[in-house]
Structures are given as C-alpha cells and as structure tokens.
C-alpha cells in the first residue's frame, strides 16, 4: 500500500548501534516519477542527458519514456538511510548500485531497505536497499552507514 502524504521526519530521533537488529526494515519512501520531477532533477543535478527528460530520445535507447538517472537513485538512497538513522548517520558507501530496469515517467516507486549486517567493532551497519517499481525491483544497492555507539 502506498502513502501519498509527505511524511514529516522527527530529526530529534537518532539510531545508535545498540538500537539496531538484523532484519529491521526501514520506513519506505514513496515517490512518483513525473516529467516535472525529472526536469527539476536534471536541472539540479546537472545531468542534462536528453534521455532523462525527452521521451523520444529515451525511446530511441530502448526505454518506454524519459527515465530517472543514477544520481536521482543515489540521492533517494541517501535520503532513505538518513531519515532512518538520524542526523549523526554517516553514509560511508553506497553500492554497488545495480540498475535492473528503467524508472520512467508515470512510474510509481517505493524505496525500501532493511538491516542485513551489523559490524559492532566498526560501528557499521550494512543496509540492503531496493527500488520497487509497481511490484518489480528496478534497482538494488547496499549501503554502509556508521552510527554512534
């Protein structure tokens, strides 16, 4: 089930290494790929490749429509991890990010994550992250974060 309200994050909350359990799921983020969002994103991240905002050019490369770029997925994964962990969460590594299918205009995405590994002596948590595009996984990634003790 999706939620189209804009979730307000309580940034006073902070996860610590003591709080985490393997298998814990992160609150998902739901976001629709509208053409306007792609245009805003291209202007902001400076990846102006036409495939990310021009349907005919995107179709010439095999996609159904203009599609979100890698930078957008990276930024959304950063948002997912930070909103879960809190302000003192340092993102050490994102990847490998594997792009399995296009995320096109008109698609509804959900960014999901869960704790897959806890490395106590390094204050490090590994998250498995995946992008659900209407029931199909369109991208996967691991994220390594450092949390306070």
């Amino acid at each position, binding site marked *: 089930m999706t939620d189209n309200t804009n979730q307000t994050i309580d940034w006073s909350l902070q996860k610590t290494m003591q709080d985490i359990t393997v298998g814990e799921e992160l609150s998902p983020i739901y976001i629709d790929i509208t053409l306007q969002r792609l245009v*805003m994103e291209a202007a902001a991240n400076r990846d*102006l490749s036409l495939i990310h905002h021009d349907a005919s050019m995107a179709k010439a490369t095999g996609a159904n429509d203009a599609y979100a770029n*890698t930078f957008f997925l990276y*930024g959304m994964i950063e948002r997912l991890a930070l*909103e879960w962990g809190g302000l003192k969460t*340092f993102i050490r590594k994102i*990847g*490998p*990010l594997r792009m399995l299918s296009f995320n096109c205009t008109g698609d509804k995405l959900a960014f999901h994550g869960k704790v897959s590994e806890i490395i106590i002596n390094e204050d490090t948590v590994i998250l498995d992250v995946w992008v659900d595009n209407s029931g199909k996984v369109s991208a996967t990634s691991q994220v390594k974060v450092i949390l306070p003790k």
Partner: protein
Amino acid sequence: MASDKPSWGMQGTWEQTLSYVGKVVGVSQGADAVDASSVRRWLEPKEFACPLYTDEQVAIDAGYDGKIAPSTMAITYGQPTHWQAGDKRFEHGDEPIQIPIPVIFEVPAPFSLSFATSMEMEFFKPLYHGDEVTITHELVSLVEKELRVGKGAFFKQKDTYRNQNDEIVAIGILDIFRFNPVSKGDS
C-alpha cells in the same frame, strides 16, 4: 541533420582502447562551489528536508563544522560548466550535452552504444558550503564480453573526488558496457 540517437563516444580501434588502461582519461572541474541555492534545488525533486543542509547549528550539534551538502551531491558539484563566454551558441541539431563519463566519450573504442550497469561510491569527508570539487577520471580495466544486446566490453571507470584542499571527498567506481548491438539479421 542531427541523428535521432545520442552520440555514444569516440570511435577507435581496440588497440587504441587498450592503450588507455591505467591512465587518467579526464579531469572535471566543478562549475560552482557548494551553496545553499544549489543544495535546495537538488533537495526539492527528492522531497528531502534535512536540517543538516540548511541549519548551521543543527549541523554543528550533529558533529560537523557547519552546514553540509548531501554526500551524493559530490557528483553534481564535480560537473563542469555547460556553457561559458566564448563558447558557440546552442543550435538545433547540436549534440546533446552529456555528463562527463570520459571512458564513454573520450576513450576511443570500436563500439557504437553503451550503458552503465553498476556504480558504487565511498565517502570520506563531508561537503561543506563553499567547497569546490574536482574529479579525476581513470580507466581501471577492460573486460571483453558478449551479452544478449551484443558484443563489447566492460569499462571500469574510477572517479576520485577532491575538494579545494586536495582532500579526497569520495571515490566512485562506474561499470559501463560499451558494445555493438546485435543486428536484426543475426541469430
């Protein structure tokens, strides 16, 4: 007349391609320093409201020296100018502006198309407002491969992101498959 397909990089022989392995194939100087306006415009399409990026005191309380930018914005701050004084006018039929992925656009190869298959980034230092980013792009390796889409090779590009103090902010690894598509007559 312009092609209806984007340009996919410099053409050349495989021997030329091999000669680039282990070499720096491009350096990108970011167009602008980190600032509040560019951070805000990047956050908006992601509906991402985090006070580390907008509130100096919140960032300091979280252990930083001041307001920061999202770590993944290093990619954006390493992008060069798209136009500057003296450049030609943008005209109908021009090749579209592309992001700097030198292993696609500057390493000659006997392939006509490409796509990225995987990317990873490690982050070492925060990006502070006022920081400037430079990216050094290297071709790390080539692996020939035949995939369903055609014959080609995986190109591994290593991008080292440095700030104005020559400190490494991030390192990115990008895997790109450059290939010739299977023609309709091929089995």
